[in-house]
């Protein structure tokens, strides 16, 4: 049973397809990382899943039907699409109180959730325009959890959280999924998602460019090799006819086994400083390659640089 399913979702804005034929599904008990640079179409896809935006083609389903057909969606699906989308003149506790009343949740749950996300009594009484981005994100998470939902759809929830907050959120989401919940969370930063996601869906230029578990995505990631003389290493590799992509940290990611790369380096008389399966470096490279190779990714180049860092 797919708790969240995007089937060929397509959205055109101003004649340009910002989301094109996006298909993926999220199963119960799993965390799905929805990755891509800013402007890749993550938010638009999530808005279509939540019925806030009409797809030009394709269907979005949540809990086996259109989101719109859920009688009281807040009790089954927790949503955080934009932590800034709150009335600045409302107090933190009141913002949650309004939503609790709307979905018929006991008002007593509001202080519980504020405590859970680490907003103290003073913060609860503050007006939201005085909130920092991190506090807004915490309130947004409290809001998403308010109705005790079984599905979470979170757009860039880690944005603005400090490293400690990010770890806390990962644990929260992991626990949520381990209890049988379904999580879809987006990020433009690989490292935010990598540690918690069971599967990753990578989007670039409005299209899905790769999807699968970490191991599946890395199956052909290649070998990371670094040398004291990078230029000599590059020459040796290309002389051997191997495709070598320069890596951000220096050195190359090569589509070959470490042993073969080592032999070539030996033959070429190059002293290696590092040699092994590319793993995380490979995933970063993969993310970079996949998303930068996609059409329309040009303007997002700066974000890509940030994304792989």
């Amino acid at each position, binding site marked *: 049973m797919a708790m969240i399913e995007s089937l060929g979702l397509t959205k055109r804005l101003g004649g340009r397809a910002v989301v094109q034929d996006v298909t993926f599904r999220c199963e119960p*008990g799993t965390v799905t990382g929805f990755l891509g640079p800013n402007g890749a179409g993550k938010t638009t896809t999530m808005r279509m899943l939540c019925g806030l935006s009409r797809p030009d083609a394709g269907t979005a389903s949540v809990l086996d039907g259109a989101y719109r057909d859920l009688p009281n969606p807040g009790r089954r699906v927790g949503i955080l699409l934009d932590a800034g989308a*709150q009335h600045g003149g409302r107090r933190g506790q009141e913002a949650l109180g309004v939503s609790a009343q709307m979905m018929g949740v006991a008002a007593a749950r509001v202080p519980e959730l504020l405590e859970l996300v680490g907003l103290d009594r003073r913060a609860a009484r503050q007006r939201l325009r005085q909130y920092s981005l991190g506090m807004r994100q915490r309130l947004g998470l409290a809001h998403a959890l308010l109705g005790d939902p079984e599905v979470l759809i979170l757009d860039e929830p880690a944005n603005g959280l400090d490293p400690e907050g990010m770890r806390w959120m990962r644990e929260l989401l992991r626990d949520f999924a381990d209890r049988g919940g379904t999580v879809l969370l987006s990020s433009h930063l690989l490292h935010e998602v990598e540690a918690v996601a*069971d599967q990753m869906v990578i989007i670039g230029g409005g299209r899905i460019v790769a999807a699968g578990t970490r191991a599946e995505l890395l199956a052909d990631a290649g070998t990371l090799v670094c040398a004291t003389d990078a230029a000599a290493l590059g020459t040796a590799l290309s002389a051997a006819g191997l495709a070598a992509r320069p890596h951000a940290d220096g050195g190359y990611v090569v589509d070959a086994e470490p042993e073969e790369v080592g032999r070539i380096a030996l033959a070429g008389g190059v002293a290696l400083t590092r040699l092994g399966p590319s793993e995380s470096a490979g995933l970063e490279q993969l993310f970079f390659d996949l998303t930068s190779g996609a059409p329309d990714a040009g303007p997002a180049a700066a974000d890509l640089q940030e994304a792989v860092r």
Partner: protein
Amino acid sequence: MSTATATRPHGFHARGAGTRPSLARLTKVELRKMTDTRAGFWLLLSLVGLTALVVVISALTGPALDHRFQPMLYNALQPGTVLLPIIGILLVTSEWSQRTAMITFALVPHRERVLAAKLLASVVLATVAFVATLAMAAVATAASASGVDGQWTLGAGLFGQMAFSTAISMLVGVGFGAALLLSAPAIVGFFAIPIAVSAATHVVHALRGVGQWIDQARTLPDLLDHSYSADEWAKAGVTLVVWLAVPLAIGAWRFTRGEVR
């Protein structure tokens, strides 16, 4: 690829997930939203304060004839004709400017129910405001104790018109808010467009006839002044189609279909 099981996730008891929020509950939420922000709080407080100020001034000044209940109530209702529409406008536009519409529509995907709740909440607030104004005008009338004939006389027809007019002014605000979806243009438009139309119907000769039917300044304010004749009702009705039904229809379309960003 996944650890999915066919069983229903445990630890989640979707209590209340099967019943959609009632319109009464949504109306209560909208009333709450009118009062729980800083802007909403001060607007309502200004309304109470200004109305009190008006009745005090009315009771202390002017001839004894003006200290009767009817003129007192007429004066007391004036601040509401300005402030209630603004509250109505903000009730809709703040959802867009503050982007809370994303939350509201995620919780209630059938947006027409949200709009209906806003309209109902407006009628409730206008009614409460009317009753409060009534009480303040009554206290002022009693205190001034003018003793003139007909101190407490107020026809049922006029009384009804006053209540109707108070509710309508707020609903026109909601209509403008929904049609424009932006606070400042909606507030400016609410006050400026009728004045411009009124001026045009006075200045442009060809529009004079139309003006009798669509100029708010001519067809609506007297709802608070005297009991309307059939002819006056017809003109007020046409005016309300132009200034209430049309903006509300445009607003309903934009409110239910507009993309929230």
